[in-house]
């Protein structure tokens, strides 16, 4: 199907169906069922087997009339991609549609207090008793768990198998007595994540995803989509801006949806260091006349500009379909450097004002929030240490770390809590 044919068909369909006075779920139900919501998906599952180039054309047409797309917030699309690849037909039938319409909310239950960088070291256990899986343990860093309907759960089902081979992947119903969700407060005062406790929580046997013991491979699919999504999230942010002015019930509901999901993350721009504030603040405070401030500001601008240009180089290469160079793996580590440099500069500009926060703080507390949030940037989503390992091993082809976690999981040293 060529570009023009797609455009014609989408336009015709939109003319007949797009209606901003519908409820969000109503509209998305139409969209999903039509196959225009996820055209790159298979025909059998709400899609049209389109290439990503073809899908982009559909996207453009939707954007032109301001039509709302499928639900993409939270980890919905990670869940969908995982189920699409590893789920049974029953899973797909049950879960995919309410994911895309936004009716159901999902959360990811991988990290644990004892396994952060080392996800495969999970010790949350699922034991098969009386024809059901009984889950016990604790998960951490779970976003949106407090309003999730379903969770993607990585749990250990075999303690005698090697570490990566004793894990299984489940879909767990979050609305049950055995699941307790608690907010996890961070040092900057926000509580963007949850801890989830399982105490004899129950999973139906048919909610095992993939084969028993194959959970690590399934989780890797989720994580691969998460990494790929990091770029998408950034461009998504821009969409929100343009949608802000649109009227109609569907838009109102979408804005609320985004707002709810984004609420715990208002500090994320601060975590990245808010380089955008540096020069304006230096000018406003007059600190830009201080030669030391100039030097540090310039260092920051060099770092952030060159990091941005490096990301653009990576994207250009990708868009040209050329083999990715090393520049594609450096973004996360570069972001840590940028954020730390930004925190330094903001402190230098603020001088004594760096003592204050909240209403007394510079920029109504935003500067203080930067200073208290930047430490997370080099930890969340893979520490700098893990990033450097990955760059060294995958990009620079240096030897892998020696393994100390082979053999039966039962015998591998692990955290005791």
């Amino acid at each position: 199907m060529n570009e023009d044919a797609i455009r014609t068909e989408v336009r015709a369909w939109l003319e007949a169906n797009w209606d901003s006075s519908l409820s969000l779920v109503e509209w998305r139900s139409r969209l999903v069922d039509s196959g225009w919501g996820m055209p790159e998906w298979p025909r059998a599952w709400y899609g049209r087997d389109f290439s990503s180039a073809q899908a982009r054309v559909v996207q453009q047409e939707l954007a032109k009339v301001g039509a709302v797309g499928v639900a993409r917030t939270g980890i919905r699309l990670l869940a969908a991609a995982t189920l699409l690849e590893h789920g049974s037909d029953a899973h797909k039938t049950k879960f995919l549609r309410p994911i895309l319409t936004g009716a159901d909310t999902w959360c990811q239950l991988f990290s644990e207090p004892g396994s952060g960088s080392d996800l495969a070291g999970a010790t949350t256990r699922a034991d098969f008793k009386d024809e059901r899986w009984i889950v016990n343990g604790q998960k951490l860093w779970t976003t949106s768990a407090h309003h999730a309907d379903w969770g993607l759960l990585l749990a250990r089902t075999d303690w005698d198998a090697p570490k990566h081979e004793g894990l299984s992947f489940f879909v767990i119903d979050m609305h049950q007595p055995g699941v307790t969700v608690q907010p996890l407060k961070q040092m900057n005062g926000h509580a963007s994540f949850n801890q989830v406790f399982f105490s004899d929580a129950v999973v139906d046997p048919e909610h095992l995803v993939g084969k028993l013991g194959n959970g690590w491979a399934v989780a890797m699919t989720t994580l691969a989509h998460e990494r790929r999504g990091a770029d998408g999230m950034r461009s998504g942010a821009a969409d929100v801006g343009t949608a802000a002015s649109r009227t109609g019930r569907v838009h109102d509901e979408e804005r609320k949806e985004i707002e709810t999901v984004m609420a715990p993350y208002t500090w994320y721009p601060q975590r990245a260091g808010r380089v955008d504030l540096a020069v304006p603040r230096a000018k406003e405070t007059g600190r830009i006349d201080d030669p030391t401030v100039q030097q540090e500001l310039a260092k920051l601008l060099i770092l952030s500009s060159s990091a941005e240009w490096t990301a653009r180089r990576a994207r250009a290469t990708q868009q040209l379909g050329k083999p990715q160079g090393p520049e594609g793996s450096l973004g996360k580590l570069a972001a840590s450097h940028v954020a730390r440099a930004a925190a330094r500069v903001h402190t230098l500009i603020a001088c004594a004002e760096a003592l204050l926060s909240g209403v007394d703080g510079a920029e109504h507390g935003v500067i203080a929030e930067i200073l208290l949030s930047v430490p997370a940037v080099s930890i969340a989503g893979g520490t700098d240490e893990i990033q450097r390992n990955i760059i060294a091993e995958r990009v620079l082809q240096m030897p892998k770390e020696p393994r100390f976690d082979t053999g039966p999981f039962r015998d591998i040293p692990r955290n005791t809590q």
Partner: protein
Amino acid sequence: MRFHFTDEQTQFRDTLRRFLQTVSPTTAVRRAMVTESGYDAAVWKRMAHELGLNGLVIPEQYGGAGFGLVELCIAMEEMGRSLLCAPFLGSSVLATYMIRLAATDDQKQRMLPALAAGESIAALAFAERNGGFDASSISTLAARVGDRYVLTGEKFYVLDGMSADALLVVARIGVSDGLSLFLVRPDAKGLTRRALEVIDPTRKLAGITFDRVDAELIGDADTAAPALERTLDLGNIALANEMVGGAARLLEDTLAYTKMRVQFGRAIASFQAVKHRCAEMLLSVELAKSAAYFAAEAVDEGRADVDYLSSLAKACASETYLQTAIDAIQLHGGIGFTFDQDTHLWFKRAKSSEVLFGDATWHRRRMMQRLPAKEVA
């Protein structure tokens, strides 16, 4: 210079450490830091009565212990380790030294014994909205009215200003080039004070406005500037020692955590990247300790380059404490960024200490202005 602590000093440190382990575990820190005053009054009394800490550097004739800066800095280092929440730096260091340096004998007699006894808390109000920690930044105005003065202006960043019952306010009489020191009671008419929202809840700051507030001149008019500078030199040295105490504690806690924390089947302390980072942390902490110790000893030995050494110690401690705190959070991983884990308490103290009384850049510039003819060693 001795370059080591005497046995008595080491004993003093040990006593203090035991005391602080009892009264200032992080559970106590977390309790105190959410209060407006920011400290536990019972502990404050015990510090005075059991250990004589509050009057450590108050001469014996005024009811104090008459110790030198080295002993004070041992106390500060231990308080920094345990993150003690108390108006010690504001009252027992800054205000105390300012009174010692600027007040008349009669005024000392009136103020110091109460400070030593833990019955009074004083705060030195010098910085203003502009945030400058030096004499030239001060514009609060004093006008003579009979025997007394009235003050008009605003003080900001007043350390322990909310808990103080005696405010020592630095102001200018008219258009004078010199500075003068005044005693003001916080309940005086025309005075408004409020707790500032701070980045470090273990270090309380106040903002105070004066609208023709009655004040008593302390010492002689127009002569407070050198006393203020000296007080800040000593305060910076004390603060630097507090900071290296905090940094050393962070390193210890981080080491313990990395040895206990297992990932990939091994303690994370066994990863070379972790080992090397800890080695650099140790180096940085030991260098900062050396600078902080040296500056304190230099004061007690009457060296002439205390201004240079004070700025050196403070600039060094600023960089070290903050970097150590950053590293500590990093090596704790995600858990290190949570509120329930304790690392962030020291991180916030490191942040507030970094800029209190001037940041590293400011002190490095000052170092070069005060560079002794022959470099120290």
